[in-house]
């Protein structure tokens, strides 16, 4: 997946640059409500349940201050990505037990295969392994700066 394509998957109305929630479940709720408010989903119940179940499989907080809540549901019409940031970080039960500051919520339609979102997930998990990129992601405050970080990656 080329960096240009990666950046183009993000939308300004699907970004939260300062999450209000302070707890794991409420962060998931806030992101899902944002999707509903933006018209991306009709019913937040299914998505929230699916994401909570996914977290019971193992935290999607991979450490380094980044989490990747993800999954497939029949209630998702298209591949959808939401970016969210918590400046102070929250306890997302990350694998390294450190606070999580950056969230990439990735949702895909269930009638399509897992490969529809796995490629994107793979690209993003690789992206945050670059220390410079990661530092910039912690600090993004608007869509332009997010696009610059995602578009500058040559991975």
């Amino acid at each position, binding site marked *: 997946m080329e960096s240009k394509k990666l950046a183009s998957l993000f939308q300004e109305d699907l970004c939260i640059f300062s999450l209000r929630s302070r707890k794991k479940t409420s962060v998931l709720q806030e992101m899902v409500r944002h999707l509903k408010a933006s018209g991306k989903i*009709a*019913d937040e*119940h*299914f998505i929230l*349940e*699916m994401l909570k*179940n*996914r977290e*019971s*499989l*193992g*935290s*999607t907080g*991979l*450490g380094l201050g980044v989490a*990747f809540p993800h*999954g*497939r*549901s*029949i*209630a998702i*019409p298209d591949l959808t990505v939401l970016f969210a940031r918590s400046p102070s970080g929250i306890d997302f039960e990350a*694998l390294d037990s450190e606070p999580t500051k950056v969230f990439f919520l990735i949702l895909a*339609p*269930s*009638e399509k295969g*897992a490969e529809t979102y*796995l490629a994107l*997930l*793979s690209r993003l*998990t690789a992206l945050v392994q670059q220390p410079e990129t990661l530092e910039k992601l912690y600090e993004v405050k608007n869509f332009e700066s997010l696009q610059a970080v995602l578009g500058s990656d040559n991975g």
Partner: protein
Amino acid sequence: MREEFRLLVALQDLDIMIKEVEEKKTSDQLKNMGFQLDGLEELQKARATLAGKIPPALRNRYEKLAGRYRMAIIPVTDDKCLGCFVKLPTSFFSSAYSSELITCENCGRLLFIP
């Protein structure tokens, strides 16, 4: 949407997740990215709890369809069943909004309006 249909949709989402973990190729990909997938037992327990809340007749109908097709419940897009791609009759839409469970007359799958 009727409550039991909501539960059925949640059950299918859970089944898809469980299947992904059980598929070696997908779970290997996820593990290579750093995800831990240790909670399969938790998911299976959640599935059993959820399945127990669904009336047996409806659950059996779902299980039969899930055994036959990759997905028992399928979305409707552009007036078509996305399982068999057959255009749905106009009568479908009047009954759909009466919150009854709708079945594709061609393939028998349960239909979901996104």
